[in-house]
């Protein structure tokens, strides 16, 4: 029994880690989408967190409890700096600007070779992200978003999502909310990036590009953004599906794609379409 469980955990360890980490990334996406904004900078912030965390651990040997908050703060700082100019943009223009951030950072990682290892990336990162930590943080974040969603802030967020101008006229401080959401989203993505780096043992510059940005967006699109739990469900489904379908061998990716297409067609509001109930 014990041996069986041990083998099971060994087989799915990486997957179980990835589920939790992708859950955090989905929440980071939810954070901006709940305001009706389309930012694709999550992958870039995740990369910043991953590189910050990995470098602090590898080069300075800082303890993990210190590394983790710093790798959330660095992306938050960057979000604060770029937030001013980029948040004047909206819709697809904001998306393009945030994609550019990812590209700029990618080129930076490749060329700052002495620090980041260039194209070869950083390897040998110690595995410090325990399952308890990953899922503890995820639970904490879901609970936090749930509480915020039911509060005055949540109501303002939903108002912005439905009609930004009307919300502004009603007295919602639009720039403050937007910047706040971007910073919180960057912190979450940075945290997830650092956890991923400390569970994968290897990171490279090409992991945080456009493709990852779209993957993170698809978590929220598939799951829905009515409640904080919805994007997490989306992340779990999208991450687990390729592994669950592994026995199908050659047809794996076909079925994987088919399920996603069907879900998008028939569940346009996401797999979890419910909305948060408000406190009276």
């Amino acid at each position: 029994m014990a041996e069986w469980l041990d083998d099971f955990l060994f087989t799915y360890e990486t997957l179980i880690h990835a589920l939790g980490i992708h859950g955090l990334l989905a929440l980071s996406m939810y954070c901006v989408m709940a305001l009706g904004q389309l930012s694709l900078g999550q992958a870039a912030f995740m990369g910043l967190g991953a590189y910050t965390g990995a470098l602090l651990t590898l080069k300075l040997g800082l303890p993990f409890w210190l590394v983790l908050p710093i790798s959330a703060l660095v992306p938050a700082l960057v979000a604060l700096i770029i937030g001013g100019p980029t948040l004047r943009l909206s819709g697809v223009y904001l998306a393009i600007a945030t994609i550019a951030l990812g590209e700029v950072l990618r080129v930076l990682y490749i060329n700052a070779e002495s620090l980041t290892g260039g194209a070869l990336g950083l390897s040998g990162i110690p595995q410090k992200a325990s399952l308890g930590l990953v899922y503890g943080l995820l639970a904490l974040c879901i609970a936090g978003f749930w509480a915020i969603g039911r509060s005055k802030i949540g109501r303002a967020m939903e108002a912005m999502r439905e009609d930004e101008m009307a919300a502004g006229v009603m007295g919602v401080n639009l720039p403050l909310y937007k910047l706040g959401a971007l910073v919180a989203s960057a912190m979450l993505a940075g945290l997830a990036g650092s956890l991923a780096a400390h569970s994968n043992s290897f990171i490279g510059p090409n992991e945080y590009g456009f493709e990852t940005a779209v993957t993170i967006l698809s978590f929220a699109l598939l799951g829905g953004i009515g409640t904080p739990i919805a994007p997490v469900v989306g992340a779990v489904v999208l991450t687990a599906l390729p592994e669950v379908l592994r026995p199908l061998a050659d047809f794996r990716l076909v079925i994987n794609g088919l399920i996603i297409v069907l879900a998008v067609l028939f569940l346009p509001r996401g797999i979890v379409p419910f909305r948060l109930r408000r406190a009276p």
Partner: protein
Amino acid sequence: MFRSFLVTGAVAVAAVAVTPAFAQQTVTVGAIEILSGPSAAYGTAIKAGLELALDEINAAGGVLGGKKVALIVEDSAGNKDQAVNAARKLVGRDKVPVIIGPTLSNEMFAVGPVTNERKVVTVGTSTTAVGITAMGPYIFRTSLPEADVVPVTLKTAQEKFGVKTIAMMYANDDAFSKSGFDSMKAAAEKLGLKIATIEAFGSKDSDFSAQLTKIKGLNVDAITVSALVEPISGVVLQARQLGIPASVRFIGGNGANSPKLGEIAGEAAEGLLVGSPWFVDKKDAINDKFVADFRKKYSKDPDQFAAQAYDTMHIVAKAIDTAGAAESDKIRETLLKTNHTGVMGPFTFTEGRDPASTEGVVVLGMKGGKFQILQ
């Protein structure tokens, strides 16, 4: 159920019906290769090479006194996370003593620490980057690292064509190209070649005129390029368009060793030199038989990845047989003592679990859109 389904799929060609009672009589080996996505050509070639060797091994009576060898090939889609998941499944669920693969060096860097920790022998057949086998005592590779092949190519260029001054170009955004360039630079310095300039570009770039115009003004004897085949083809084509004369030879790394280069670049690639651990027209009895059998089974020519995989399967099967049991630790010991003559030539491992001999390396020259052994 899942397991027997997979096993059946993998060895369908061998027409072995796997039933639980029969499974006792087989030794299962795992493989992780790219079978889907843009790089699927590599993984499919490797799988073909492995299965051809598997047929021969089982037809000759298998291993360990009559046990058949079964192969489970898992798809990684070229993604390192999926490669790790596949490795964990092979180790945790299928309990294989040996894993062949994964295909890419990046994937190997992610899989290596996991399999090494579980003491499962892992043999790369196509991973050429620096530092692969340094990951741990259970990580082997049968592919010659770029650091062994490139010096042979450069030396040939120096001796045969009097190359003295070179310009170096490489793609700086992927591990394979960067690592290949590092080996090239070290080899050029060791041979005393004068490096006129080093120019970098991105793997997905399509315009190399800035770098090439600079190189044109430097009057070099040859230009080395380390990148995947698509950007190399672009570099070669644009160099000729910009008027760099055909007397300036291109020297490619492992990425240039692909028939696709001739197809894309055509005339422009004439005279390009590349080192290869294996070549389809290499004349010896073992290679002739391999090429003939491969053509018969798959109706196409094998490439170097299939050849390396073919040798690896034989090496692994031999190691299992001499180990006397399908146990990872014993196989590791016998694998270290490997002495095999395959399609790539005589093969032994160094103490660092890399291939020991570069005897099999041949330098190829591009002629009329096809590679030929340099005479």
